[in-house]
């Protein structure tokens, strides 16, 4: 049984087609990444899974329970960390977590609440009012709230947006532990290195449609081999090499700064002919780096429309 089954889900906001027939199956125990630029439809999809938004068409189940018709069971199996930094200013951290437990029908949940707080370094803030917490601490409480009922499926919508390195490490350590213990984790993030390090499988959304769906390793393999990054002086990249540019649409220095070029190579044997061609053109290599392609490169290529599933 899939932890989350999404079948032909459509959602339109007036003239905007937020989701145009999305289908995904996220298996139990997966650490799944949902990536895409702003406005791709990630949050809309998560909101539909969580029951905060209703799909115009299609069906979503969580652990086999339909999120619309069997919403109680579906929500009982789901923990969602919302993207917005929201909190109830009337309560302390412990009160907030106790109330959230109660909403999910749990009595005497303090043992687990204490464990969650300890794992998120919140213990010494337990009796502090939510208003008095820093943004990072509020973010931790949001994560804790999503976990109070020990949901088998955890959805994190950009949980590390604008938070410090310490929280990221603490959070990922805890979430990775929960994933090892069998919880399914779905993550959206703009930090692609996080997604690459954590996710087994990734779906990329663009304009409300899935444009890539594969294991993280297989996605990275789509950009075969490595990148040779050259910073040149006394001339640009020879015409003959431009076909190998990683981003051919920006040939006048396609890698972050002028006169810096990233060339795709499949074999180390290709390096020498490239260097020879540059020398022949009269340009001087000021700096040279050999880099492995990563998820960010794949993401950029897919979003540029170079790779379509």
């Amino acid at each position: 049984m899939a932890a989350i089954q999404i079948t032909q889900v459509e959602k339109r906001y007036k003239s905007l087609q937020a989701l145009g027939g999305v289908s995904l199956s996220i298996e139990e125990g997966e650490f799944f990444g949902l990536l895409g630029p702003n406005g791709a439809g990630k949050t809309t999809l998560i909101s539909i899974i969580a029951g905060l938004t209703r799909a115009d068409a299609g069906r979503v189940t969580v652990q086999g329970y339909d999120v619309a018709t069997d919403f109680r069971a579906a929500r009982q199996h789901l923990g969602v960390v919302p993207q917005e930094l929201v909190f109830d200013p009337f309560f302390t951290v412990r009160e907030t977590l106790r109330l959230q437990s109660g909403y999910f029908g749990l009595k005497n949940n303090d043992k687990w609440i204490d464990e969650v707080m300890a794992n998120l370094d919140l213990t010494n803030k337990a009796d502090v009012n939510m208003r008095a917490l820093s943004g990072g601490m509020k973010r931790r409480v949001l994560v804790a709230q999503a976990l109070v009922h020990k949901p088998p499926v955890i959805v994190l919508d950009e949980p590390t947006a604008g938070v410090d390195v310490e929280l990221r490490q603490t959070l990922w350590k805890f979430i990775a532990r929960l994933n090892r213990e069998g919880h399914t984790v779905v993550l959206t993030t703009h930090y692609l290195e996080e997604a690459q390090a954590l996710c087994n499988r990734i779906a990329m959304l663009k304009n409300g449609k899935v444009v890539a769906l594969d294991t993280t390793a297989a996605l990275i393999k789509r950009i075969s081999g490595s990148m040779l990054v050259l910073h040149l002086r006394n001339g640009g990249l020879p015409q003959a090499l431009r076909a190998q540019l990683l981003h051919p649409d920006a040939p006048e220095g396609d890698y972050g700064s002028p006169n810096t070029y990233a060339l795709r190579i499949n074999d180390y044997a290709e390096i020498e002919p490239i260097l020879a061609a540059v020398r022949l053109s009269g340009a001087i290599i000021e700096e040279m780096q050999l880099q492995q392609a990563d998820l960010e490169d794949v993401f950029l290529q897919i979003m540029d429309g170079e790779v379509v599933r």
Partner: protein
Amino acid sequence: MSLLSMPKGFQTLFYKEILRFWKVASQTVAAPVITSLLYLLIFGHVLENRVQVYPGVGYTAFLVPGLVMMSVLQNAFANASSSLIQSKITGNLVFVLLAPLSHWELFGGYVLASVVRGLVVGAGVFIVTVLFTEVSFIAPWWIVVFAVLGSVMLGTMGLIAGIWAEKFDQLAAFQNFLIMPATFLSGVFYSIHSLPPFWQTVSHFNPFFYMIDGFRYGFFGQSDVNPLFSFVIVAGFSILLAGFAVQMLKRGYKLRH
């Protein structure tokens, strides 16, 4: 079904709503009690020997049930409406919406907490005002029935307004242009028999009038209309509004997109 045997989710929402207003009791309980006391002292002082609404009942004594009921109604409305609009605007309503709470649990949690706040403030107003005048209790059960039913009705209206409003000024408009006039024109400060015939007729279309008139009957055994008739009107309105509110919650109107 006792409260303890109700679903835990409902109990928690109810408890949270109580805790929310209790944590700011100076604003949610003490302030309306003081406001009502000021009404009593000022109007009572000015009108005590000039107006007699019912035979043998002084104006200050006549005013007490009206002020109590007005406080019950306004605070029951304020509890659900302010909680919802604040949660919607600050975004923390998401915690309730993510939980496996049914529309009945949401309705029960918000309205019952509103009833509690209405009754707590009403009791406070009563305790303070009876220090200044004597009132009788001819039919105490009518007092309880109309206090509870009135707070259910206004708690439900507060829930509807809180769901409907998207901004604080929309809620304020609901309160200032509907709740406040309906309350003040319901006979809190006067008997409708003192009004010209046209306005007497208009008053009979105001459901708030029946709540206050029936409530006052419990104290003095005198009212403008039969309390049983008032009960039927108020209960009917309450059921109608409750059905409307439950449907809004079930459909996720302005709550789930």
